[in-house]
C-alpha cells in the first residue's frame, strides 16, 4: 500500500490539509494552555494511521484510497457533517477511525436531501465504515459521530476509497 506512515517529526509535511489545519489550530491552543503539543500531534496522526489501517482490506479489493482526508475532534454524541462530491458509477467506501482505545464511532452517508444512502455499514470498536453506490452524481454528506469514549474530546480521521 502506498500510504506511508511518516516518522512523527515529519508528519506535518505529509498530513492532508484539513488535518494539518486542524493540527495547526490545535497546536496553537495547546501552546496557549501550556499543554504538550507533541502528544497532540501524535494523537491526530495516529487516528489517520488507524483510518488507513481500516482502508487496507478495501485497497486489497481494488479500491484506490485517496491520500487526502478529513479529521478533527468531537465530544461524545457530537456529530459533524463532511460534504463530498461523489460520482454515479463509482463505489465508495468511507473509513473512519480514532486512536482512543475503547472509543466507538460511526459514519453514515446521506444525499443532499438528507436521505440515508449507505449501501452497507459496519462499526467495530475504534473503526467504522460505510459503502455507498451513488444513484446520482452530486454532493453527499458523511455524518461522523463519536458513540462512546473515555475522553472529553476524541480525535477522528476519515478517509475514502473508490473503484
Amino acid at each position: 500500500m502506498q500510504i506511508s506512515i511518516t516518522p512523527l517529526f515529519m508528519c506535518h509535511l505529509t498530513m492532508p490539509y484539513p488535518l494539518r489545519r486542524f493540527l495547526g489550530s490545535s497546536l496553537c491552543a495547546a501552546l496557549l494552555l501550556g499543554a504538550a503539543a507533541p502528544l497532540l500531534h501524535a494523537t491526530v496522526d495516529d487516528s489517520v494511521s488507524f483510518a488507513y489501517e481500516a482502508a487496507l482490506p478495501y485497497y486489497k479489493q481494488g479500491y484506490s484510497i485517496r491520500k487526502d482526508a478529513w479529521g478533527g475532534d468531537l465530544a461524545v454524541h457530537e456529530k459533524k457533517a463532511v460534504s463530498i462530491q461523489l460520482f454515479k458509477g463509482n463505489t465508495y467506501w468511507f473509513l473512519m477511525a480514532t486512536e482512543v482505545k475503547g472509543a466507538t464511532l460511526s459514519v453514515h452517508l446521506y444525499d443532499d436531501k438528507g436521505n440515508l444512502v449507505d449501501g452497507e455499514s459496519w462499526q467495530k470498536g475504534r473503526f467504522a465504515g460505510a459503502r455507498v453506490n451513488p444513484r446520482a452524481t452530486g454532493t453527499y454528506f458523511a455524518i461522523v459521530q463519536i458513540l462512546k469514549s473515555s475522553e472529553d474530546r476524541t480525535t477522528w480521521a476519515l478517509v475514502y476509497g473508490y473503484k
Partner: protein
Amino acid sequence: MKNFPLIPLTAALCAFSLMAPLSLRADVAPKKINLSEFPAAAVDDVVVPVPSEIFSVLDKLGNPNWKVQLRDGKVRTPETPSRIAFLLGNVIAEGFVAVEAEDSERVKDIGRQVLKLSEGINVKKSVITRCKSITDKADQRDWKGVRSEFDGALQDVRAAMDELNDHDLSQLVSLGGWLRGTEVLTAIVQNGFSKDGAELLHQPELVNYFDRCIGSMSPRLRKDPLVAHVRDLLRKIGPIVSESGDSITAENVKTIHDLTKEVDGQIVTGGN
C-alpha cells in the same frame, strides 16, 4: 443492516448478544436527517476529487480514447507563482490522463515536469521521492500505483506549500488540476454524448468551494489576471453545473469545454 422488525424481539436480542462480540456491528442510523441542522457543525474543508475518480466512471460508460486527450509538448516554468501553482495542478491532472492512456513514457515525462515546476515554488524536496516512484511504477506499468503516486504528489506539494504559509497557492494547485480534469471530461463526453456522462459535471458544491477559496485570497492574488479570469469562469460554469445532473445538455458540455480549454491554454502558455 438487519431488518429487526421481521424477527421476534427476544430472539433478536438473544441472537445479537451472542453474535455481537464476534461480528461487525452496525449502529442504527436515521433514515432521514435534517441537513439544515448541520451548517454550524460542518467540516468546511472540501476534499477535491482527483481526475481518476471521474475517469474511472468514463471507462465504465464506454471506451474513451485517452491518447488523443494527451497534451503535446513540454511546459516551461512560468515566472509568476500563481501560474506555477495552476500549472503544477494542471500537469499532475495530465499525469492521470497519461495513466488512463497507459503511456509510460508520457507518465515519466510528466513526473519530471512535476519536479521542475515544484522547484519553481520551492517545494521540490517534498516530491522528489514521489517523482522517482512515478518513474519506477510507470516502467513496471503499475498503473494503480502511478495513480496513487500522482495523488500523493498533489498532497505533498500542497502540504509543503501550506508549510510555507502559501495556502492560497496551495488552493490554486487543486484548482489547476480540476480545470484540466474538467477539460478532458467534457472533451470525452462531447465525443459520445450521454446523459450519464454529462451528469458527471453536476458538481455545484465544488465549484462554489473554489469560488469561495478565491474570494478569501489576498487582494493582490485576487487581482492577478489569471486568477480573476478563473473566477470569472467558475461563475459562468456555476449555474450550469448546479442544474440537476440529467438537465446538463450537449450544448452545456461544449460551453464548459470551451471555457476550460481556453483557460488551461492560458495556464500552459501564459496567453502567448
